[in-house]
């Protein structure tokens, strides 16, 4: 066993670093460091997306024939880690990591030809229409309906927790097109133009004061039947595929380490407190552990193996450790956790803030961070799944 990268991988690492040094501007880094929302704003991530696009590095996991870079899992890991350590904003996953793989796997030739390049270039900005009010983690009980009407579907209903719906020009959605015996049946996967008449978007502000999620309403929205992905009524399996895809892509340790080190810088002085110092070390060890688990998964992917159930556990722990990091922010700030700056995003603040700039996102990150163990499936549901898969319980 060894933990070192090969010569070729090290050369790639240097290439990535050089690219980042040349293209990641101080403005982008500052804006991302000040972001308390789940995703960077398009005006922050956009320039970085376009820089990566010229290099062909937008979609690490796509096959080369679809515009992916053809990287090994190790190269992917190196790329993500270097971007994180350099303070680059992560690109919105909706197009690249979510609808893209579904289109590659199940889309028609025409759909692939049309949509994939627009994802890579950044021309299309996607959002996801899965969750519905009242359905929660029980995704399959969705009730937004799509009914045939000539060459169109007529879509009625509502989606919620739609990240960046207010920025997106496209949505991929699960809608009910029929009735099956099991509620997973009769669900279809549709691509919806967000500019279509009948769509309205209501912002939802999170506890931390940010606006990334929304509720989207559909009132007789016309969606061409050509925008159906795969077969009608099989949407559940495509959607599930996507969820697994999303969950498998666990490269989070480097970003957590950056977050912890930001807090360490803020804590200077206060970190002389032995209890606080111990918490920093405990959480750092948790991050070391997440990182090593990520490397184990990466190495087994690299060796062409299935990493197995350890990936589900990683997701669970990653969300918990992220919360431990943001919660530590409360302890680091002490009384200074109280002042609050309502303006968002912070990087557009053009007046003197009520606290040091680096402290601005600390508490909002903690507040929004409560979503870590909820969005994408609650920890409780994750434990049910792990119990079933791993322990036969």
């Amino acid at each position, binding site marked *: 066993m060894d933990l070192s990268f090969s010569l070729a991988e090290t050369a790639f690492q240097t290439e990535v670093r050089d690219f980042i040094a040349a293209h990641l501007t101080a403005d982008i880094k500052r804006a991302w460091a000040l972001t308390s929302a789940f995703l960077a704003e398009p005006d922050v991530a956009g320039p970085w997306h376009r820089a990566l696009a010229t290099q062909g590095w937008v979609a690490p996991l796509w096959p080369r024939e679809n515009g992916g870079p053809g990287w090994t899992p190790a190269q992917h890991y190196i790329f993500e880690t270097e971007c994180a350590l350099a303070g680059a904003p992560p690109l919105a996953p909706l197009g690249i990591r979510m609808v893209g793989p579904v289109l590659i796997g199940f889309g028609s030739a025409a759909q692939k030809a049309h949509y994939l390049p627009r994802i890579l270039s950044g021309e299309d900005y996607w959002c996801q229409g899965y969750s519905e009010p009242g359905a929660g983690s029980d995704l399959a009980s969705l009730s937004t309906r799509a009914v045939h009407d000539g060459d169109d579907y007529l879509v009625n209903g509502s989606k919620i927790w739609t990240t960046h719906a207010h920025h997106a020009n496209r949505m991929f959605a699960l809608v009910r097109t029929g009735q099956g015996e099991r509620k997973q049946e009769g669900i279809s996967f549709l691509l919806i133009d967000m500019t279509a008449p009948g769509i309205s978007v209501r912002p939802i502000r999170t506890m931390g*004061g940010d606006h990334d999620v929304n509720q989207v309403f559909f009132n007789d929205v016309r969606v061409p039947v050509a925008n159906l992905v795969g077969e009608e009524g099989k949407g559940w399996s495509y959607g599930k595929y996507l969820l697994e895809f999303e969950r498998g892509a666990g490269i989070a340790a480097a970003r957590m380490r950056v977050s912890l080190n930001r807090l360490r810088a803020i804590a200077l002085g206060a970190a002389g407190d032995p209890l606080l110092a111990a918490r920093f070390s405990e959480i750092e060890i948790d991050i070391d552990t997440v990182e090593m688990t990520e490397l184990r998964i990466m190495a087994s992917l690299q060796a062409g193996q299935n990493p197995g159930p350890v990936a589900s556990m990683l997701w669970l722990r990653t969300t918990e450790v992220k919360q431990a990091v943001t919660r530590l922010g409360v302890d680091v700030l002490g009384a200074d956790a109280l002042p609050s700056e309502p303006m968002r995003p912070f990087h557009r603040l053009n007046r003197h803030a009520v606290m040091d700039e680096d402290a601005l996102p600390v508490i909002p990150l903690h507040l929004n961070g409560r979503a870590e163990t909820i969005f994408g499936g609650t920890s409780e549901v994750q434990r049910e799944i792990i119990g079933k898969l791993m322990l036969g319980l």
Partner: protein
Amino acid sequence: MDLSHTAEQLALRESAARFLRDRYSFETRRRIEASAEGFDAEIWRAFADLGWLALPFPADDGGLDGGAIDLALLMETFGAALVMEPYVSSVVLCGGLIAAAGSGGQRAELIAEILAGRLVLAFAHHEPAARHEYGRVGTSAVRMGNGWRLDGQKSIVLDAPMADRFLVTAQVGEDGGTAALGLFLVAKQAPGMNVTEYRIVDGRRAGSIVLDGVIVGAEAKLGGGQDRAETIAAVTDRAVVALAADTIGAMQVLLDKTIAHTKTRVQFGQPLAANQVLKHRMVNMAVRIEEARSIAMKAAIRADDGSGAAVRGQAVSAAKVKVAAAARFVAEQAVQLHGAMGVTDELDIGAYFRRIMAFEASYGTPAWHLKRYAALRDV
């Protein structure tokens, strides 16, 4: 030993809860939070009319002779309703300090105004340089002729925007003697006062002050020349008791709402509450609340019963540590069990979560109180 509430106390709680239910809905509260002022003058007058602003003052000063237990009962209803008004700052802290340390003239002049709701005060004690060491004061008061010159910085002065005057703590250097902590009444508009106002995490308001050669008269100093450190500790302990009760009120609402939500919300074909894991989680929330009630009750009794500074301080610091930890757990679980909706500002769950965060961070963090508890143990 008597650990029951009197009929009067229960009536106070009941009438306060009724008033707030009628007049202080979450929508009203949301409107007050969104307003420029951050508090509602009409509600404040109603508090005065109801006698709440008079509650903790001695009868000699026109008050109702209420003790820490009475205060706690009222504050529990404030926490349940997320009351925004500057009760703790003006009545409990500043009013309490004036009642304890003020001269006869100062008490006569100021307390009547406070309990009528005409004068709002804020307590300018915490300083940016102190950070994790609550109550370390660097602001200086130097004698200038008949009066004093104040220099220093104060931060997170809660309710500063709605205050007419501040009660400022400063190290008083009397003719080269050892420094003593003094209390000074300073008008917001006094020359040399630079006040920056802002929101705090739970939507209430606060401010930071730079005192740059602020000149005040002799009458601005509360009482005589003694060191006021112990008075400040005793009155602040009362504020912590009040806020612990506020937090218990908030926790109880969170538990009640979580139980109601999990009983009605159906997922995977059954109510959420049918999940044993969630059921036991709610039991743990209930247990933590009951623990918080116990230790907060002890602190309230010790705040008043003259057992001495160490016994009082230990009880209050224990309550801060325990209530804050319980509240953190209860708030986190209430959000978790409400699912995605819990993380938004759509429901009031998030507002309670932020209220509880504010309790944790104010008047000494739990870490600071844990150390104080240990230090007082060895007194």
